[in-house]
């Protein structure tokens, strides 16, 4: 049975919520009462539950199998974290309650912040960014503020070719010009090219380490030193922190700012597209410029520093970047995860994540081309290319073929520096058995791709839908449902 849209259901004039009766209607809304119907369908609870339960079953999820999206760190989401986030003491408090009534909430934010600072070896942390890209924005605004504070209006951000798209977009979003820096044949930042580009107009380098080829930047310290020597600062995209957490501290690599995706490394669920949370850790140089609000401990008491105290102690803060204090619901989950693992467990996390990736990489020797496979171990991601595919088959075909084998595909066509890139990140929460099954499936589909097996172009066939026409969707965007009457009227 196909599941209709709620707008198409005959029974959608119902309601799944009961209310106490309205005593006597009031009329304090001026002359702005709604007159026309809004057009919102309603379902009784049984029908609602059935609709969404059925829809849910058309999704793939970590709970169903390995989800090897490179750069996304799709690890298991512990259920304890969900329970902790729902404690009324965290879930049912208002962001503007008097601070004396939310001391535990502030303590939680401060505790998580302290863990993040210690795990990264940095100096301070800004907790309010709402997701990774928002964290990038936070980092760049702090960098820009710091430079402006010393009267240095630099305009350029250097970004490696292999960077996440959010990096250049963020730089542009806060008014910077973006320039690319090339990679070496070994998949690393070209240090010499970088050095030659550094100069008085370069505000910062935005680097990802481990990088998006799944490799650690061995020259990271040199990169930082060169950048600092040229008067610039170093931003690190922390999307790949899961590879090194508990083993390497970005602070020891000379980094000035780095966001941390709590929904990657620290297991808060991705939820089909968020919410995320992107706290940013800062070096001492950037600390004075951190955004509002933040939590400070004063004696036994936690204080929330908001707009009002600026000008006294925190006059250099670049200001507020969101209403309220950040993603509390993600903080509680992340702290639950961190306390569960502890320092020893987090070190095991990165170790197992890297081991799993290398196991995948080496198990596919001779099956899939690994552009940087010869240069040593990878970090938590294994990168392959489409070299050797025959009959016009592409990375996309292989990916769709994997769906028929029961797996979610890896990240496709990213990073851009490798042709037909396939970036596999198994994460540490996969068992050897699951990896072996995945490797087997990947081997089988890869052999078909190399043999030019035409049937792969029709994949997937064992999915709720066959390949979807994305071009059609973009050419004539249909973004909301319209009933046939409306559509007919619109056509007139």
């Amino acid at each position, binding site marked *: 049975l196909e599941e209709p849209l709620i707008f198409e259901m005959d029974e959608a004039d119902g309601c799944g919520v009961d209310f106490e009766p309205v005593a006597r209607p009031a009329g304090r809304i001026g002359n702005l009462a709604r007159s026309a119907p809004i057009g919102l369908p309603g379902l009784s609870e049984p029908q609602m539950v059935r609709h969404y339960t059925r829809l849910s079953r058309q999704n793939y999820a970590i709970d169903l199998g390995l989800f090897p999206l490179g750069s996304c760190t799709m690890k298991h989401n*512990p259920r*304890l974290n969900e329970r902790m986030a729902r404690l009324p003491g965290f879930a049912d408090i208002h962001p503007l309650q008097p601070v004396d009534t939310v001391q535990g909430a502030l303590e939680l934010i401060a505790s998580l912040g302290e863990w993040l600072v210690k795990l990264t070896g940095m100096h301070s942390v800004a907790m309010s960014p709402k997701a990774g890209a928002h964290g990038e924005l936070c980092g760049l605004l702090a960098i820009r503020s710091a430079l402006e504070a010393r009267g240095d209006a630099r305009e350029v951000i250097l970004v490696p070719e292999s960077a996440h798209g959010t990096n250049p977009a963020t730089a542009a979003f806060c008014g910077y010009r973006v320039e690319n820096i090339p990679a070496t044949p070994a998949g690393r930042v070209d240090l010499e090219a970088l050095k030659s580009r550094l100069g008085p107009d370069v505000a910062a380098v935005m680097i990802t380490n481990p990088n998006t080829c799944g490799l650690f930047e061995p020259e990271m310290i040199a990169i930082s030193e060169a950048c600092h020597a040229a008067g610039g600062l170093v931003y690190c995209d922390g999307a790949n922190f899961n590879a090194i957490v508990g083993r390497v501290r970005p602070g020891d690599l000379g980094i000035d700012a780095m966001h941390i995706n709590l929904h990657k490394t620290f297991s808060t669920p991705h939820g089909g597209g968020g919410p995320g949370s992107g706290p940013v850790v800062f070096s001492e140089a950037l600390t004075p410029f951190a955004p509002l609000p933040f939590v400070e401990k004063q004696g036994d008491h936690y204080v929330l520093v908001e707009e009002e105290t600026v000008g006294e102690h925190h006059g250099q803060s670049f200001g507020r970047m969101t209403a309220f204090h950040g993603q509390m619901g993600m903080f509680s989950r992340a702290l639950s995860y961190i306390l569960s693992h502890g320092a020893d467990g987090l070190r095991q996390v990165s170790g197992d994540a890297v*081991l799993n990736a290398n196991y995948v990489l080496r198990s596919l020797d001779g099956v899939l081309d690994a552009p940087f496979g010869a240069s040593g171990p990878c970090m938590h991601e294994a990168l392959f290319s489409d070299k050797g595919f025959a009959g016009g088959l592409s990375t996309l075909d292989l990916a769709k073929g994997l769906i028929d084998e029961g797996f979610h595909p890896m990240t496709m066509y990213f990073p851009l520096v490798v042709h037909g890139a396939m970036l596999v990140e198994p994460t540490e929460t996969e*068992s050897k058995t699951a990896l072996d099954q995945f490797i087997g499936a990947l081997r089988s589909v890869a052999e078909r791709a190399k043999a030019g097996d035409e049937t792969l172009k029709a994949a997937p066939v064992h999915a709720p839908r066959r390949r979807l026409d994305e071009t059609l969707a973009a050419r004539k965007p249909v973004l909301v449902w319209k009933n046939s009457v409306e559509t007919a009227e619109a056509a007139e």
Partner: protein
Amino acid sequence: MRYLPLSDADRADMLAVVGAKSIDDLFVDVPEAARLTGAIRDLPDHASELSVERQLGAMARKNMVAGEVPFFLGAGAYRHHIPASVDHIIQRGEFLTSYTPYQPEIAQGTLQALFEFQTQVARLYGCDVANASMYDGSTACWEAIVMARRVTRRGKAILSAGLHPHYVSLAKTMARFTGDALETALPALEAETDAERLLGAIDGETSCVVVQYPDIFGRIADLSPIVEKAHANGALVIAVVTEPVALGLIKSPGEMGADIVVGEGQSIGVGLNFGGPYVGLFACKEKFVRQMPGRLCGETVDAEGKRGFVLTLSTREQHIRREKATSNICTNAGLCALAFSVHMTLLGEAGLRQLAELNHTKAAAAAERLSKVPGVSLVNETFFNEFTLRLSVEARPVVRTLADQGVLGGVSLGRLYPGVDALEKGLVVAVTETVTEEDVEALADALEGALK
């Protein structure tokens, strides 16, 4: 460790395949100096579930829980009752543990839900199209200002004094770096909004006028005159709605001609959560669709001609367009959008109207009762479920006194506008369906005591 499936035997087998002696050997690329040789000091080791529950439980117990006391806070975040079935749905592993739907063939559940969400938001706001969510209302508001700049190619935004001060603050932060010009003002503690000021300020350089509806004091003003003047000057009108439940009772901004409508979706399905995660709603007229930020879900067909849904118009987005993208947003608020949509589906047209009616009736009764407390007067002529009181003394210490007595009595304007003397006696009070008559009496009594 309970989340790590590899056994030591597995690790040994796998290291043999990899050709390494130990896991540490896999980190050869890390400069020796930066390689930690053991667990980081000063941090505790792993802990049992029981232990974690105790540690976090102890923190949770230090907070005063909204549901356990008479509670009247709003100002951008509202406490509504969320049916238990909403949480049940968003905890389905297939929704909770899936990624952004990049592989649409195995993500139709998320995609169809987003398509329904977009349609619900567009209809609620009276707009043609909506996106698949933003972080929250405040960031959606700034994205709208940026979008208006792209559409109009002008750089001056006029912000209503009734716009939530955090939203203003955020816009000021960003504008300082982007070079946008913002015209702002402080609100006055009176029944009239600053509509006249806005009308006066619109000119040929204006990219947009940003108006909150209902505004930070709870006041409701017709947007039509502003729309008329703005459009006459080639500027856009951005309406900001922090309390979507209001739109069950009052006209949508889209109906009054707003070009872009953004807001906070937290009221429906999400809960207070001390400020986050929330869900930003973003809708606009169809003609601006290619200038919209954020993810969009669109309808299409599969290879067999069956209807299906995909993420679309991604050429606006950062992962394709990089520095030329309409926004840097990537991860958004997917699961909160789902919660919003599920709750809205339970409400439906009839339920939303009833809910809005109930909120308004309760708020009106509370306003009447509280106005009778000596030293208290009602500022608003119009309001939905939130209104502003003028106290005889500074409100911020009064709020703290009430909290000491176990009443969370509202948001003082001193908290929202620190250091603004003209506003210090203002108290913003929200009254939703979760408030009882006893709660109102408790607040009235406590206020009376505090103002003696």
